[in-house]
């Protein structure tokens, strides 16, 4: 899939907001509620009420996979899962040949050409999309 350069992904939301600490996120339940359309995450530039061009993603490592230092990212809606995979691999300094799997709801691995905006619409909760990443297949 054609992907833009990695620099399109924005700074971590915590840095943009001027703070260093990340909000501790309680473990996500596996029953997502529809995202509130008025929700604005810290660090985004768009005013409340506009359709956000970026959505908030929380990345969680599974198993022995290295943990991202920065877990919360504001990502363009049209970015694909493959684009996200490439970014995480680069961030974690993984070799190109190493595999990385991304899961939604700890249950399914979306297609690499799937847009994160669509996943956020359907599976986001509390204003963000939680994605689990793993170097091996975690949930089949």
């Amino acid at each position, binding site marked *: 899939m054609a992907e833009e350069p990695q620099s399109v992904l924005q700074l971590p939301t915590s840095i943009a907001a001027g703070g260093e600490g990340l909000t501790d996120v309680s473990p996500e339940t596996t029953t997502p509620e529809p995202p509130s359309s008025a929700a604005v995450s810290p660090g985004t530039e768009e005013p409340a009420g506009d359709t956000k061009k970026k959505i908030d993603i929380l990345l969680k490592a599974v198993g022995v996979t290295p943990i991202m230092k920065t877990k919360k990212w504001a990502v363009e809606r049209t970015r694909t899962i493959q684009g996200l995979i490439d970014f995480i691999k680069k961030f974690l300094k993984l070799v190109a040949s190493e595999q990385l799997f991304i899961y939604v709801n700890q*249950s399914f691995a979306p*297609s690499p050409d799937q847009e994160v905006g669509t996943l956020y619409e359907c599976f986001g909760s509390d204003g963000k999309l939680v994605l689990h990443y793993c170097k091996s297949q975690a949930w089949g």
Partner: protein
Amino acid sequence: MTDDKDVLRDVWFGRIPTCFTLYQDEITEREAEPYYGKDSSVSFNVVSSLPSMMLYTLEWNRILLLLPRVSYLTLVTDKVKKHFQKVMRQEDISEIWFEYEGTPLKWHYPIGLLFDLLASSSALPWNITVHFKSFPEKDLLHCPSKDAIEAHFMSCMKEADALKHKSQVINEMQKKDHKQLWMGLQNDRFDQFWAINRKLMEYPAEENGFRYIPFRIYQTTTERPFIQKLFRPVAADGQLHTLGDLLKEVCPSAIDPEDGEKKNQVMIHGIEPMLETPLQWLSEHLSYPDNFLHISIIPQPTD
């Protein structure tokens, strides 16, 4: 209802007559010599006699095949691959890919969806060009093996059940049930598939339908790959939402003005269901095996 079960069978056994032609520039061997017969006249050789997958070899670079609407290109074209590979040099062969009128065909989209979206207004057979070189990395996913198709299919099913049942039904199934769903699709076994799939079509007695309806709406006229959103089959007052309700909410441009000309076709499995059809019924009966309603919005053909 007997009628409703007939719908399930009609959907499963839908076929599209397709003509596969090897891309001109890739023909590297046997150029002067037709593969069948001494002259270049058309000869119909029945290579396989499976009732649902009759394969006719028209010429050495062309094959006619009945494709199952509910399956995937790379799952049902082994014979196409094997046949064409016989007429090419080994070193010229890399991953097979398919194209229709210049558009690379995504193998991970169901065949029926690809046809409805891209070719339904053209005359049959569906003319697909086969390539073994210059894989279009920007447009297509690689399909390294049958396992990749299975993984993709199962992931779609899991996503659908996440919407319908918060994943409860599919997660309660054993691994062998998941395997049976895949084997049913792969081997074209309606009963084998539906023995398990029927559980995914149930909902609690106190509800009137699924939690949300798994659907994707495709249009060739927009940039986005498809529209997929949360949409409930039942309104707050208990009324069943219809196909028209869904379109009005998530794709209003697809609905033609009442007294205006019909500009669009809303197509599923090659038919245009009435917009008054309850979405819950459509989800139970007209979903693809992955449990999604794949809906094409195409311009009304001008005859």
